[in-house]
């Protein structure tokens, strides 16, 4: 329901932004010389977007603009194309924006943005999960603020689990494998995931990184060189391989998470890892055949416990911004407690502020908020580096080879480590 709402909103938003852009010169010229103009590059809803781009907190936004004497212009683009346009603009040295949405791209584009988040008010920072800064921190400086808590958790079909005799979702890897096996029969599968695209957050490599942390491993050592070639890395991949017979065989061909989500929502797969926003689609009878049966839980624990990865939807401020202070104030407005509450109530994107996440009204509207909050108590590192795309292509491709049986898990992990070492060394040379 709310997805459909926001779909409509996005198009209205687009028009509104277009109308602002086409105002006659004299209306935006000298008469308002002291107003700051801020340009924000944002994803289009239903991906996470700020007030004015998505339909929430619009009155508060208008008041903020009036009080601060600021004009805000949104440039919005469908999420999958954001990085291309951004990279082109930064590469040519002419990025026209003040505030830019980023998703794990902070280390890669770090030299184009400023570490403004160090100057955010303490009261605000104290209300944010500290781990949420890990993907936006480079050399100890904070370049961004994550504005929605988006962690991978386990989504499952309660009815299918009930039928197979599982009263609760799997708590650890063994239960996960057993449960997946029991659920696989008559064209239904225990598990489904998108293993088609090796790269990026939500790609094959990032799923393996989730299991890697659950196995107690990490990607890089202190010197920045990869250290994942060990038992944890191999165990993580072996788990994925062991799950394959009970995983929808199409998974290896699903290039986007949407391809896998639909299998779960059609009721033909029992479990998958997914992002909190998926709750909306799963509860919409137009999109989902398992309304009422969708449930979520924290990810099953590996040898080192549960762990996840972070979707890292963050606001950053560009180096070329002429009004960096005003831009920071706008981000503070986006992170305002009331705005954050409307964000989840009206668009379905969870807030990042711990106080809002704990709000009973929020938890009632987003039943999975408590699960995500619980998941946030466990580690969630996305291992984002300047080479993230290249590293995840290399690792993800090796993981795919293991999943297809072309290589053993140990061999794939060893080869992946060699490739990642070469990538890191080339950057440093």
């Amino acid at each position, binding site marked *: 329901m709310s997805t459909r709402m926001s779909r*409509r909103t996005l198009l209205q938003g687009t028009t509104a*932004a277009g109308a602002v852009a086409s105002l006659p010169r004299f209306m935006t010229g000298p008469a308002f010389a002291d107003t700051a103009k801020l340009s924000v590059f944002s994803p289009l809803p239903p991906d996470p977007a700020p007030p004015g781009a998505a339909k929430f907190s619009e009155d508060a936004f208008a008041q903020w603009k009036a009080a601060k004497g600021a004009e805000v212009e949104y440039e919005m683009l469908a999420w999958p194309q954001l990085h291309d346009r951004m990279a082109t603009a930064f590469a040519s040295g*002419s990025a026209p924006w003040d505030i830019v949405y980023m998703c794990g791209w902070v280390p890669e584009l770090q030299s184009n943005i400023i570490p403004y988040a160090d100057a955010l008010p303490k009261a605000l920072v104290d209300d944010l999960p500290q781990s949420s800064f890990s993907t936006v921190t480079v050399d100890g400086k904070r370049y961004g603020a994550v504005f929605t808590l988006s962690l991978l958790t386990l989504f499952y079909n309660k009815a299918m689990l009930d039928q197979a005799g599982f009263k609760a979702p799997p708590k650890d890897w063994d239960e996960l494998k057993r449960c997946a096996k029991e659920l696989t029969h008559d064209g239904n599968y225990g598990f489904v995931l998108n293993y088609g695209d090796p790269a990026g957050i939500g790609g094959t490599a990032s799923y393996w990184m989730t299991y890697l942390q659950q196995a107690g491993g990490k990607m890089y050592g202190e010197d920045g060189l990869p250290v994942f070639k060990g038992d944890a890395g191999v165990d993580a991949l072996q788990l994925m391989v062991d799950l394959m017979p009970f995983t929808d065989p199409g998974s290896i061909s699903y290039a*986007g998470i949407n391809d896998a989500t639909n299998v779960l929502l059609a009721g033909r797969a029992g479990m998958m890892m997914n992002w909190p926003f998926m709750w909306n689609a799963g509860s919409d009878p*137009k999109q*989902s055949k398992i309304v009422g049966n969708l449930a979520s839980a924290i990810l099953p624990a590996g040898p080192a416990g549960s762990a996840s990865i972070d979707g890292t939807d963050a606001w950053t401020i560009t180096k070329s911004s002429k009004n960096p202070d005003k831009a920071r104030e706008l981000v503070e407005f986006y992170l305002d407690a009331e705005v954050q509450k409307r964000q989840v109530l009206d668009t379905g994107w969870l807030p990042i502020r711990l106080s809002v996440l704990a709000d009973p009204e929020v938890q009632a509207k987003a039943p999975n908020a408590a699960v995500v909050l619980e998941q946030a108590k466990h580690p969630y590192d996305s291992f984002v580096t300047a080479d993230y795309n290249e590293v995840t292509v290399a690792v993800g491709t090796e993981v795919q080879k293991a999943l297809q049986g072309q290589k053993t898990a140990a061999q794939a992990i060893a080869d992946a480590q060699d490739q990642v070492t070469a990538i890191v060394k080339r950057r440093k040379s």
Partner: protein
Amino acid sequence: MSFARRQHGGPLLRGLVVLGLVVFVVWSAGPVVWLIVSSLLEQQALISQPPDVSPSAFTLDNFVQVIAAAAALGKGILNSLMVALFSTAVSLALGAPAAYALARLPVPRANNIAFLILATQMLPGIAIAIPLFIAISKLGLIDSVFSLGFVYLSFNLPIVVWILRGFFLGIPVGIERAAAVDGAGVFATFWHIVLPISIPPLAAAAVFAFVEAWNEFFFALILTRQSAQTVPLVIAQFAGQYQTVFGQMMAAAVISVAPVIVLAIVFRNQIVRGFADGMTKG
């Protein structure tokens, strides 16, 4: 058996032609039919196994959603129309004379020039995207329908030149010679003799230029921001990071393909008819 009858062929040949046409229709229309069916179904019907196409599953909801978005789609269609018409008109206006000259007039090194023009198409757009963006943003022409249309000339013009040159090369020399004997100048020959008998290839070239400009995605993505956004970018909005509203995307695609189909219907006779007869009579 008369010659006219022979053109239809014997029963065997006619059977083969009918079979071929059936295969052709299934091959061309099959996926298109599914496109249209998808635009009329809810997502939950599309993810059923097999897809649920019972009459009760059909709905106009996707079109309602997309038309509620008409402001963005309408603007996109308008922008695409301007870009496509501009780039089609200019590439024909510049391409047809160039093709004629390279085919028929004593331009030095005509073959080399023609090959050079083709060679501009051999570097993938991905490689020239960033330098092109730098150049255009220095000129302050990012997000302009005009600069996008101009950039589209870079792939439309060479193709138009090559399509037309091939056809001009095939025109019997006698026709032009007769015109020259009648005292017609080069320009008059081109305008009054060559162009009128070249309607089908001109139409083919125009259709090519229009469709390519109408549907181009990559340059539109990097060279526009908000106000010059074209149809393909609007269609792409229906595929987000976490979900694709497939029915709505297909509904947008149906709407966006409509103008092209209308053009094709209007010009269907120009697209391939009447060349050979006109020429032999002339």
